[in-house]
């Protein structure tokens, strides 16, 4: 399963990517929206884990742009923010809306669940 991680926190995204790789996932990551779009154009991903708040482009906007490039990808929002608006919008737009910090096993189960549901 190939995943794309998008989060402006480099430390977080690299570590999480490494942990997912250890668990057998193919993982690319980006810390900027433009890099994420670039990667999505070049590769096909089963699921995108992305932050809600990023400098310049919000998670929702990036999801919309990624959908234009790859319409069939699944999305999980993983964010440290939990405002009412984000929660409502995020939980409607993505398969799951998770708040940091999240246990890796829970994240993996949500990833599997999202991909399996889609298939």
């Amino acid at each position, binding site marked *: 399963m190939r995943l794309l991680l998008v989060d402006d*926190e480099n*430390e*977080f995204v690299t*570590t*999480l990517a*490494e*942990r997912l790789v*250890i*668990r057998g996932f193919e993982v690319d990551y980006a810390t900027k929206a433009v890099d994420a779009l670039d990667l999505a154009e070049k590769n096909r991903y089963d699921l995108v884990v992305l932050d809600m*708040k990023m400098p310049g482009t919000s998670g929702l906007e990036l999801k919309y742009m990624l959908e234009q490039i790859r319409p069939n990808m699944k999305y999980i929002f993983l*964010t*440290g*923010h*939990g*405002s*009412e608006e984000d*929660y409502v919008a995020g939980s409607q737009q993505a398969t799951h809306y998770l*708040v*940091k*910090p*999240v*246990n*890796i096993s829970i994240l993996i189960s949500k990833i599997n669940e999202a991909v399996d549901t889609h298939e």
Partner: protein
Amino acid sequence: MSILIQFKPDFLQAVPTSDGPYRHSFNFRSIWKKAILIALLVSLCPLIFITIIDYKFTQNSIQSENLLRTQQVGSNARRSISFFLSERLSALSFIVRDNSIEELKDPEKLKGILQNLMASFNGFVDLGLIDQNGVQLNYVGPYQLEGKDYSNQAWFQQVKDKNFSISEVFVGFRNVPHLILAAKYVMPDGSFFILRTAIDSARFDDFLGNLHLNGRGDAFLINKSGIIQTPTLYHGNLFEQFPFAVPTYSINTEIREEIDKAGNEVIICSAFIPESPYILIIVKQKDELMKPWRATRIKLIGFLVISISLILLVIFGIVTNMVNNMYLLDQRRLSSVHKMEYSNKLASIGRLSAGVAHEINNPLAIINEKAGLIKDILSYSETPGQNPRVIELIDSVLSSVERCGTITKRLLGFARHMDSTFETINLPNVIHDVLGFLHKEAEYRDIVITTDFADDIPEFKSDRGKLQQIFLNIINNAFSAMKTAGRLNIVIRHHSDDNTIVATITDNGCGISEGDMGKIFEPFFSTKTRQGGTGLGLSITYGLAMELGGKVNVTSKLGEGTSFFITLPINPPQQKTEK
């Protein structure tokens, strides 16, 4: 006393509190006093002023009317007495001119004349012919008065000078009060003779007695020396001295006021009878005369008292009602303002919590992932379990991160529900969330919290944020009421008969006094003003419960504890609670 307190308006029952941001901007007690004072001044001053004027005017009118009436009676009586005397004197003058002395010396002739006089006029008693020496030459009448010498009597001296005479009342030879009328005829040789008649003074008594005087009136004659000439009712006997000053001569009927010996005010009307020694006197008791005025005065004072009472009643009623309504409106205004402030404050706290949680969550997530990666590296390495102590430490880090995450997620959960939205609620979960914030404080203060949630509590539609505020306020209140080692018990039951859920929160704190029980849900009522209490917590809690279609009841015993009962409907009236 308790009945009086029941009718005591709210603003007078309000306990004055120290100055602070949530106090009233108006002193309603002072406004009430000023309004009543001004209303009383404006309404009572003109009324009292007009009443005093009317009082004086009526009093003067009645007094003037009495004086005038007495004066009129006096004038009429004077004319009548004067006419009585002059009529008889004229008859006497006619006879003395129409008859010669020889004819008058004839007893039969004189007797015939007397009979004619008595038939034409009343009052004639006898008739006598007197020579110029005062000796009675001829006499007809009931007494034996022939040959009597009148030369020493005053009337004889007067008739010699004036051709006629009206005497004062005297007893004379016959020992009966009478008065003498005499007319003189001067003959051509210069000698004269006098025709004299006695008039029964009782005729005056009858006449004066028939005047029908009101006010204990007394009418009688006195002479110019003040000797009483006719009987009086209250002012002395015949020939006694008149008890007041003899009036000075006046052609008119005079009236004056004096004080009698008993100290009573009297009105004295006096009139000099022309060509006679008599003064007509009418004495009336002023007190008696003013009786009609006293009746009017009682009515006037009664009207004034009733009017003032009604005005006082109406002013007190209206002003008190208006000020009380103003007070209640002000209470409502202040309550709304502070409720809004409170909501804004909560919303700000919510936003702040969300921001803090977000800021903490990101570094927590990095710690979580880094520690997780270390554990992964050790766990997935080719030589696993080389250092179990390291794995244990990493698990401890991950566990602590998870605890922090739970706290920040709970904060986010609270912040997320500050806005009013209806959603499916599991009440035990809501209470668990609230207790999650308070369990540390409970631990520090050694407060034991026990819960008893029935298994059949159904989920229902309600506003999570409002429910959180309700339970947070009440549990916080319970914590404030308890010292260390307190006990807080929370019970939730489903009442299927009226389809409600009742949460009972019982503490063993200080309790609420009976006097305070009726006020605890009023805005700004607080027993913790000195500790910074605003007195809005329970008021807002009550308002929130009402908004959700529920209610809050309370029972308490001073020194033993308090129970709050929060009743929530399974099917709330959504149109009232949803924005």
